[in-house]
């Protein structure tokens, strides 16, 4: 019961944050010169000034910024996210069509990150200050320093061009087709390795810290095998701090998706976002931004819940 109330309060408290984000983003978009109609006109010089004004009015782009914001907001509250002007399509379905691709990429990247980070982190902590620990440190450092786009390009170079194991660009197929899922590996690994580096360092330091605690000596003194001591007693305690970082990673993964989808021509929201920015598609930018915000907030909420499951001392009441 108390957990339900906690969740309700948390969700409610995000509303001002989302509001702030929407105002800020809206202002930013309008501070940059140009709008979709400018591009339309540039491409079609035969459009007259009167026609241009009419089109602007149709999309509500003619009033002052605050008025545009209010219109946008009242539409939003009615569940209308606006229009993608370039293709004259409502924003909602436009996002929904690309969402599964990004979710698949994000989840896969996340899974890779956890799969690399947790075992390596454990290994590095248990074998602290040995060669293996140093190697993991080198890996983490390179993971943090290598930009996503570079790693993505290198993977394409090696695995697509040289080894010919993958196509160079994402095949134009439905997400759940074998060709598409196979292709998902490359961008997924790119996103995953970058995130795993941070996660691994946290895992290592948190576990190293836990390993020094007395309950570990006590568990050993009970005669439990080292595997049980580490994987049962220490791991669960160490995961408590890792959970928080893993939730933060959601933001990093979305940011990574923007670049990685571009590099791999992956047909998801990240690529749509870049195109929206180039085309000054206000409604689309706003929708994707808010959507990302909500996702990150939900991820943190999930982390808080996992946190309570892992640590019985934490009760949200």
């Amino acid at each position, binding site marked *: 019961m108390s957990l339900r109330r906690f969740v309700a309060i948390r969700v409610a408290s995000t509303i001002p944050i989302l509001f702030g984000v929407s105002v800020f983003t809206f202002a930013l978009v309008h501070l940059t010169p140009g709008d979709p109609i400018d591009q339309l006109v540039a491409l079609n010089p035969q459009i007259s000034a009167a026609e241009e004004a009419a089109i602007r009015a149709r999309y509500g782009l003619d009033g002052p910024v605050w008025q545009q914001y209010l219109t946008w907001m009242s539409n939003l509250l009615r569940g209308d996210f606006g229009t993608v002007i370039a293709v004259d399509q409502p924003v909602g379905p436009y996002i929904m069509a690309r969402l599964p691709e990004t979710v698949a990429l994000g989840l896969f990247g996340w899974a890779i990150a956890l799969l690399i980070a947790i075992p390596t982190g454990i290994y590095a902590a248990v074998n602290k200050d040995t060669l293996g620990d140093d190697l993991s440190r080198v890996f983490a450092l390179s993971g943090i320093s290598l930009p996503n786009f570079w790693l993505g390009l290198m993977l394409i170079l090696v695995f697509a061009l040289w080894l010919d194991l993958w196509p160079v660009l994402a095949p134009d197929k439905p997400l759940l087709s074998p060709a598409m899922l196979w292709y998902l590996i490359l961008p997924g690994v790119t996103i995953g390795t970058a995130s795993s580096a941070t996660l691994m360092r946290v895992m290592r330091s948190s576990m190293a810290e836990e390993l020094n605690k007395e*309950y570990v000596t*006590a568990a050993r003194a009970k005669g439990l095998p080292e595997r049980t001591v580490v994987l049962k007693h220490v791991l669960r305690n160490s995961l408590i701090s890792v959970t928080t970082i893993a939730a933060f990673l959601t933001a990093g993964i979305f940011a990574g998706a923007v670049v990685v989808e571009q590099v791999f021509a992956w047909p998801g929201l990240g690529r749509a976002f870049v195109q929206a920015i180039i085309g000054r598609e206000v409604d689309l930018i706003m929708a994707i931004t808010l959507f990302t915000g909500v996702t990150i907030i939900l991820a943190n909420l999930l982390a808080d819940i996992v946190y309570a499951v892992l640590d019985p001392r934490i009760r949200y009441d």
Partner: protein
Amino acid sequence: MALLEVDDLTVNYYTEEGVVTAVEDLSFRIDRGEKFGVVGESGAGKSVTALSLLRLVERSGRIESGEIRFKGEDLLSMSESAVRDVRGNEIAMIFQDAQTALNPVYTVGEQIAETIRHHLDYGDAAARERTVRLLDDVGIPEPEARYDDYPHEFSGGMQQRAVIAMALSCDPDLLIADEPTTALDVTIEAKILDRLDRLAAEYDTAIQLITHDLGVIAEVCDRVLVMYAGRAVERASVEELYYDPKHPYTVGLMSAIPRIGDRQDRLQTIPGTMPDLVEVPSGCSFHPRCPFAEEACTRTRPQLVDPATGERAGPDERSAACLAYTGDLDGELDYEVEVRGRDAGAATAESEPPEPDGGGVDRGADPDADSEGKADE
């Protein structure tokens, strides 16, 4: 054959400041069912000794030499998995601070039951049943319900009881209790010691009780080893130690009142502090604090000898390590033992030997500790 035989144990720690000898040439015996006390200030090497018996000294420490035989078998040359079969099963440990010794994220019951499942091959239900019985034995009310509580839902005294239950879970032959009551308040301390004493008899378990508190030793133990700066300085039965201490350090310990529950620093009457183990004083390491120290004490390291004969003593004989007993001093050890515990009740009342010479004076020196003690009775 004694249950546990430790011979010439030396443990070094490799720190940034240099090699620290935490335990040096330590020998002692513990018989089956015996209650053996190890006393000394913190840093004297008591806890390191305890961890050595389970072969659990931390990574920076190393058992340099010596032998530890448990039931005649050399623990130090055993394989890791053979040692694991001994840990928690035949030799169990009660940690000083139950709160940190319990894993916060598992239930108290599970932490006891897992040991039982592991060593005794019990199924889940049987292990649970045995655990509930143990919790009951150590005096936890409603053990059935408390089984599923997490450590933070237990009070300090209950946590300590749970840790004792954990140590007793597989019916060990030797229980190492490292300051088992230091973290507790006075009344609970007395109860827990009493319970420990009874359970040891019931389970026929030998106890190695490690403490800085001579009052606790008096309450529980048969024989005592006094440690200073990593070395044994005196070994005696509790009675001998209390009424006829032979080492100046023990005398210092004694003059701070041996009564249970007194939180005063017992060593305030000995000027100075224990030496930094990186730079142990030459000769007798106690000489900077010893009121009888002479020039010889700074040069010659005293061995544990029979105080009556000055001959080297065996590992279970009464002995003290002071040059006075080997004839290397010009003066004599001139002190009077003041047994202030005489009328102090619980601490000495049970194991009372005949009235010692020169006993029962000087209570006034420590009125605070005294009245505090009375209030608890």
